[in-house]
């Protein structure tokens, strides 16, 4: 019996080592999350969570991230469908361009948005019409949209690519136009992809920092989302408030990730 165990152990040394690494890293991540949440006393945490600043940040984060997610869905669905279905000249170049925001550091994207909407004639024209992005909450939405739509787009593209075009062929031989086919066949079949993409986009939107910092700045109680609140409060040393904002973001991340995995969400990103 002992002999058998020893043999098995020797044979599975490799398994133990590789699994060990996984467990070790899992422990590190878990420790980190617990450390953040328990860094202040529960009373201080509750106090901070109820403070007007954190309440403002929660409200602003939820509003901006919801708007930017809806925008991402509206823009990404037709884009993803077109890129998944139609062949055309220059497609691979367009594809690489559309993937760019994924590879671009958010800070650089923020600088770009600041320049385009702040100092070009186009941006100034928009501002004159009352559509101002620079140092406004609208700028946060813009930053979240620009940095996160590639996630929505890629998830949807792979979803549409996973739907056999023959479903659409059948629909079209049965009397539907392409548009009707899209609404009655392709989109309903892509439902899971849309939901999964929306969760990811929203979760990333709510945590967006670099691009939003450049476009909308960090103004207390004006463009103060949860990440900006962490940044501001860490800078001025008000750790309790920073921890409160971080705790909320951790809870949101855990819930989003869990929901996403429950939905069986797997989507090719790269």
């Amino acid at each position, binding site marked *: 019996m002992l002999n058998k165990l020893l043999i098995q152990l020797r044979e599975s040394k490799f398994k133990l080592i590789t699994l060990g690494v996984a467990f070790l890293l899992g422990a590190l991540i878990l420790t980190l999350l617990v450390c953040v949440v328990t860094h202040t006393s529960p009373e201080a945490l509750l106090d901070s969570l109820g403070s007007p600043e954190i309440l403002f940040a929660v409200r602003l984060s939820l509003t901006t991230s919801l708007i930017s997610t809806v925008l991402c869905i509206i823009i990404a669905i037709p884009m993803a469908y077109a890129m998944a279905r139609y062949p055309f000249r220059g497609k691979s170049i367009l594809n690489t361009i559309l993937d760019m925001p994924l590879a671009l550091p958010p800070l650089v994207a923020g600088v770009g948005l600041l320049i385009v909407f702040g100092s070009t004639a186009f941006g100034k024209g928009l501002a004159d019409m009352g559509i101002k992005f620079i140092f406004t909450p609208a700028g946060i939405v813009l930053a979240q949209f620009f940095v996160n739509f590639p996630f929505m787009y890629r998830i949807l593209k792979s979803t549409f690519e996973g739907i056999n075009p023959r479903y659409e062929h*059948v629909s079209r031989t049965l009397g539907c136009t392409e548009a009707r086919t899209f609404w009655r066949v392709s989109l309903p079949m892509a439902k899971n992809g849309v939901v999964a993409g929306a969760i990811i986009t929203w979760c990333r939107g709510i945590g967006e920092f670099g691009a939003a910092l450049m476009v909308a700045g960090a103004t207390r109680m004006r463009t103060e989302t949860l990440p900006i609140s962490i940044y501001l409060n860490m800078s001025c040393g008000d750790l309790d408030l920073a921890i409160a904002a971080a705790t909320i973001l951790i809870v949101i991340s855990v819930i989003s990730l869990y929901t996403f995995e429950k939905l069986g969400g797997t989507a090719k990103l790269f």
Partner: protein
Amino acid sequence: MISITDLHINLGEFALRGVSLSVEDGDYLMVLGPTGAGKTILLETLAGIYTPKSGNILIGGKSILNIPPRKRNIGMVYQDYMLFPHLSVDKNIRFGLKANKVDKEKADEKIKSLVELLNISHLMHRRPGTLSGGEQQRVAIARALIVEPRVLLLDEPLSALDAKTRATLREELRRIHDITGTTMIHVTHSFDEAFLLGNRMAIMDHGEIIQEGEISEVFRKPNCKFVADFVGTTNIFYGESLVRNGLSFIKIDGTEIVSGIPAEGHVYATVRPEAILLSLHPIESSARNAFKGKVSRILDEGSIIKVEINAGIPMIAAITRRSLEDMEIFPGKELFMTFKATDVHVFKV
């Protein structure tokens, strides 16, 4: 009548290269060919999914090239059913009627009679994913038929099914064709299926139609080595032919085979293994070809046995297991082979 003339299309991996074909109303045309021959793309171009680079498709004398798929009135059934997974069976079948704005009462009536014909009335409230392969294919056929298409295109509709279901659905398709009279174009890679269902047959390879005609004609008279190989003749001989009195006398490695088809020079001669009669003693008959030889190999293929006999050249005869046992055939045994000159098909190299 559908008439396709000189159709060219290139989709990279698959292509059509000058396909011409005509199908009479009520025909059951089988399209055969190996993978990659361009069979599916032919159907999809007919349905209007792809626009050909050149060539034309006429139905009833009018070109349909500028008509979008939804107005062509051509039905499509795929190997993998392609039932909409988010809709119930009922809604799948109703799909075409809704798209064509048929009013509900009339739709209900049409669906009722069609689902009864196809024996799927009990499945109407199920989701496609919960059905067996055979059931799914019935639903797919119903969905295509409900809009009363002029032509029904079937893309290997039986390939994904097990042997038993395949046989049942094959009979079903024949019955549907008999009852509705719908023109059918049915793609398959199975020769047996073609033989059992169609009245005409077209053989494709590399985007071209290699041979077209009555099924039995193609079966008996393949016009080239590819078709002969494809329809399963395993006795293919290469030799030199001389014509006398309207018969071909073909010299193959010293052995002479007689064929009823006159052709001079370098030819291929083919004899289907089932056409060769085996006997223990010489047979007196009108058959022109009679050989004596020794059994060199017995290929047991389960229910049918192929016996290879060396009579100067190796010939293969197909017999049943029963005959094998009755005649006590074993390797080395001497046997007589007899086959008619009309069973020997000849084509020029």
